[in-house]
């Protein structure tokens, strides 16, 4: 009998994860994604490229990021042992730089001189502006006007780094509109411009490429967990906006069938209120921003306005691989409200002296619910995807405090 392997091997050669993913873009962008696809395929197996990437990840980003056993918080919750994958300790304060450092190296090899990006919370914008400053490349970041207002410190950081931040006033003035505007720029300046998409979504090859750059999170976590605890984790938890930090943690564990994977979407004011950003929990499949995936859309296919306390999760779509993992049942997707996320935020801050980003606080809040239902010898890894410095204004406003 021939031995068969069941190892996970997505996407297919056309960028499809089952019915999801694909290449839903205007004709002018086809040559650009074909060029990118060729470069991605070539360099992801190129020893020199990978060595440069590893070197930058170690000495510039500060990898590996620690896997920290939150002993006090685990004891307090009285269940599973909670470990935090400390992506908040990366240079620029979030997981986003794992991807921008990779894409900028590709852009450099492709001879592109101008970089554009979209950003929600501003973390991806900052991570893009950072790598552009380092290589002396022109950088334009599109950001919804609503997000500019609530993440003003990140706007200032991007400008200090030499980027031009364009405030987008069309549509709902949040992340989806920033993406629309970035795509319009890309179509117009396609010859010299490289679009660094910040999440594992968009036309092929972006979902797989961003996942590959972010998978360093899961590869490290797996090794660290084996070293520290002597076994694989039982559960992985990560927040989901577009889902890049989650897919980065999940992907290296997909073939480990005993490891449960849970993605946490933003329930905003509550799923039943309609004011949320939870397409996997309460949306339907459709096409937006270059890929087919779960979306928040009405019966006519118009995209619905989203809501979340965290700008980074305030997006009506999600990376297509999560749609696939949901449909095949390999990952589970849940949601956490603004109010619950704040409880997660305060808990970690007070219990462990770590101020998490509001995005990551969604994952922490779900861990607070799940950990007490688990045994004390079970291991739960939460991806602490970013630090909370950028959210001080939002938290202060919430508390009615002037800072």
């Amino acid at each position, binding site marked *: 009998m021939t031995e068969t392997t069941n190892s996970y091997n997505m996407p297919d050669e*056309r960028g499809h994860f089952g019915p999801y993913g*694909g*290449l*839903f*873009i*205007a*004709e*002018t962008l*086809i*040559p650009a994604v074909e060029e990118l696809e060729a470069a991605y395929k070539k360099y992801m197996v190129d020893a020199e490229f990978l060595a440069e990437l590893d070197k930058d990840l170690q000495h510039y980003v500060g990898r590996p990021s620690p896997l920290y056993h939150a002993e006090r918080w685990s004891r307090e919750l009285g269940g599973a042992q909670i470990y935090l994958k400390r992506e908040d300790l990366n240079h620029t304060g979030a997981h986003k730089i794992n991807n921008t450092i990779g894409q900028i190296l590709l852009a450099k090899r492709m001879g592109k001189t101008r970089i554009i990006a979209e950003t929600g919370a501003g973390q991806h914008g900052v991570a893009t502006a950072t790598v552009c400053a380092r290589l002396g490349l022109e950088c334009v970041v599109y950001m919804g006007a609503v997000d500019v207002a609530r993440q003003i410190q990140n706007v200032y950081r991007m400008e200090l780094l030499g980027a031009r931040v364009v405030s987008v006033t*069309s*549509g709902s003035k949040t992340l*989806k*509109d920033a993406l*629309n505007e970035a*795509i*319009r720029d890309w*179509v*117009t*300046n*396609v*010859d010299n411009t490289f679009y660094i998409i910040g999440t594992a979504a968009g036309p092929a090859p972006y979902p797989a490429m961003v996942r590959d750059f972010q998978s360093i999170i899961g590869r490290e976590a797996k090794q660290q967990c084996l070293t520290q605890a002597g076994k694989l984790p039982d559960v992985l938890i990560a927040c989901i906006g577009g889902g890049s930090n989650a897919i980065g943690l999940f992907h290296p564990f997909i073939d480990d069938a005993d490891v449960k994977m849970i993605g946490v979407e933003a329930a905003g004011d509550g799923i039943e209120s309609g004011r949320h950003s939870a397409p996997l929990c309460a949306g*339907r*499949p*459709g*096409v*937006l*921003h*270059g890929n*087919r995936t779960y*979306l928040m*859309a*009405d*019966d*006519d*296919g*118009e*995209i619905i306005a989203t809501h979340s306390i965290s700008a980074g999760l305030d997006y009506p779509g999600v990376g297509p691989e999560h749609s696939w993992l949901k449909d095949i049942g390999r990952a589970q997707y849940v949601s956490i409200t603004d109010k619950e996320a704040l409880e997660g935020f305060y808990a970690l801050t007070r219990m462990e002296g770590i101020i998490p980003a509001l995005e990551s606080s969604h994952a922490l809040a779900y861990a607070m619910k799940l950990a007490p239902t688990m045994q004390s010898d079970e291991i739960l890894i939460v991806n602490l995807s970013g630090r909370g410095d950028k959210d001080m204004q939002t938290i202060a406003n919430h508390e009615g405090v002037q800072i």
Partner: protein
Amino acid sequence: MSRLATKFAEFKQSGHKALIPFITAGDPNPEFTVPMMHAMVEAGADIIELGVPFSDPMADGPVIQRASERALEHKMSLRRTLEIVSEFRTNNQTTPVVLMGYANPVEAMGYESFALAAKNAGVDGVLTVDLPPEEAEECAALLNSYNIDQIFLLAPNSSTNRIKKMDSVGSGFLYYVSVKGITGAGNLDTSDVQRKLIDIRANTQLPVGIGFGIKDAETAKIIAGLGDAVVVGSALISKIEANLTAPEVAKQDIIELLKSMRFAMDNQD
């Protein structure tokens, strides 16, 4: 043969160049659209392109974005756009109508339901901006089975191989996007278009419509000398936007612009 193919075959015989105005269904209000379509035919339009409003029109410039927003405020949708086509068809059975829009409203309706509804409404062609041949197979086959053409785009950076691909998958006509950019772009260079058309003509017998950035009669005349059809959109919608409180004035301005384009296109030097 589809209504579009028949028309273009006639035009080829007579040397006539098609004028294709684009307006967004339901802009500035739903009642405006059908009378405007009839008036455009009167003014010399050969084919009408009707924009299906979408919340996130990624390939459109500000003018058509705002047209979409105005239409959506009136709850315009793909279904209601099809109703508009049906209504237009009660008094006009000969002018081809092409829908131009984005994939998600079609996905929401379902390809099969959409193809059938489009046929019943009297639609002749469907141009879905974010549905390139890589993803269009299922939708195009269903539309073709009802004698509706799926219209594909070509761009200034499309390779010769790409043109050949469009020739094999496309029908009705190919739409050449004359600038790298979004609708209403201001950087149209007609000599670039002329150069690109040599490559396109060498690789397809399909009629070629040219659009993006054509704003006046003079440009329409030059473009008509290069392609088989001239598409004008943002320049018309700008008239609507300039007269939001007086749609009848907008209608007159649109008629005048189209007439001037028609005259210029028909009187090549």
